[in-house]
């Protein structure tokens, strides 16, 4: 059995860990609120742009096809976090990315990863996956218009030059602070939306200046909006996962402290009993000697 002193030291250490996890939980909760708000605000733009891109491409489908002789390569952008301590968030994400890669290989398209966030990069490096680039240390915020533009530029360039024939992004979809689901979203080529079965005509637009000139611009805006959306979802998910993980850690610490306190009290009582026995035993011995 551990000594009283050792148990006391242990309790103090667990308590300070608990303080840290509690603080991290509060910070994550505050950031989550902000991230959720940003996600909500960006939704109308993303939805409207996807709709416009969709309807424009329906009236000019040839303008958004992959470059001629494009390599059968799919760029898979994996949006992970830079830091850990967020439960199974990154592990689930990377597992989803890997199963997507397997599916792509089966479909005769070579997957190449692009890591956003240190956790994805570390993983892909460790297992020697084909890496096509990375953006790590996205502090203090992951979901910025700047990073979304940067990624859209990279994708756009590879798409134009024919280095890739498809692009997808793996990110965690934020459903609630305790539930995040990794998803794979195909960005390019844009799948034509399902037409009404009765063959209703596609909306006919007056396009200025011309579809050929406008499509690259819309494509660019579409990529930017889609990347920003993925980053925002990922950011909210990360903080949700972190908050949940830190909440669990704080609870575990509380449980551990109460168990250790019990153990400490038992040890103290045992020591008192032992000391009493010694005194009584000593007194008895003295009385025996005097008699």
């Amino acid at each position: 059995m551990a000594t009283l002193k050792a148990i006391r030291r242990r309790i103090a250490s667990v308590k300070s860990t608990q303080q840290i996890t509690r603080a991290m939980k509060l910070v994550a909760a505050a950031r989550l609120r902000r991230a959720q708000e940003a996600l909500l605000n960006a939704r109308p733009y993303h939805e409207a742009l996807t709709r416009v891109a969709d309807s424009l491409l329906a009236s000019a489908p040839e303008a958004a096809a992959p470059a001629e002789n494009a390599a059968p390569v799919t760029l898979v952008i994996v949006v992970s976090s830079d830091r850990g301590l967020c439960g199974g968030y990154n592990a689930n994400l990377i597992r989803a990315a890997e199963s997507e890669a397997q599916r792509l290989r089966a479909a005769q398209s070579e997957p190449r990863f692009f890591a956003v966030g240190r956790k994805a990069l570390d993983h892909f490096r460790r297992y020697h996956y084909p890496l096509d680039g990375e953006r790590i240390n996205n502090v203090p915020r992951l979901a910025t218009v700047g990073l979304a533009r940067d990624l859209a530029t990279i994708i756009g360039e590879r798409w134009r030059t024919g280095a890739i024939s498809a692009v997808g992004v793996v990110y965690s979809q934020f459903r609630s602070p305790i539930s995040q689901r990794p998803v794979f979203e195909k960005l390019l080529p844009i799948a034509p939306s399902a037409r009404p079965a009765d063959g209703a005509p596609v909306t006919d637009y007056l396009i200025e200046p011309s579809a050929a000139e406008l499509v690259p611009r819309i494509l660019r805006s579409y990529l930017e909006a889609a990347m920003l959306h993925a980053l925002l979802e990922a950011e909210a998910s990360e903080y949700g996962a972190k908050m949940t993980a830190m909440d669990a850690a704080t609870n575990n610490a509380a449980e551990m402290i109460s168990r250790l306190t019990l153990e400490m009290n038992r040890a103290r009582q045992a020591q008192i009993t032992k000391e009493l026995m010694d005194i009584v035993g000593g007194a008895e011995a003295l009385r025996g000697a005097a008699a």
Partner: protein
Amino acid sequence: MAETFPFRLVSPTGIIYEGPIEQATAVGALGEFGVLAEHVNFITSIEPGLITLKLADGSFIEYLLSGGIAEVKDGAMTVLATEALPLAAVDPAAAAPEVQQAEARLSQMSFYDPGYQEAEQALRNARARAEIAHLSRLAH
């Protein structure tokens, strides 16, 4: 009173303006254009400049757009702006040095450089902000 139509101005940071308007005037790829109720279905790109909205009560609102896309579909207009600022938030004095910087950067680039289009866009953006008082349609 002229007929109104539903209008929405959205940017990545949220819905900037939503409601019925009588007329919208903005700068498109082929120059300034106006939209009234029952406009034909239409898509164009938006160039850096002002959008002026005439509301049902006859008053006007203006925003500075840094680019984007405008769509009219089934009588409703949606403007997707990469950035939209209310006029009061624009500081022409702060934009003046940005114009110079952007001009200097652009003068050292060739048309085929990878960042050329972005630099050109930045210059047009800064110019629009610096000349905001001049651009406003309400002042005239």
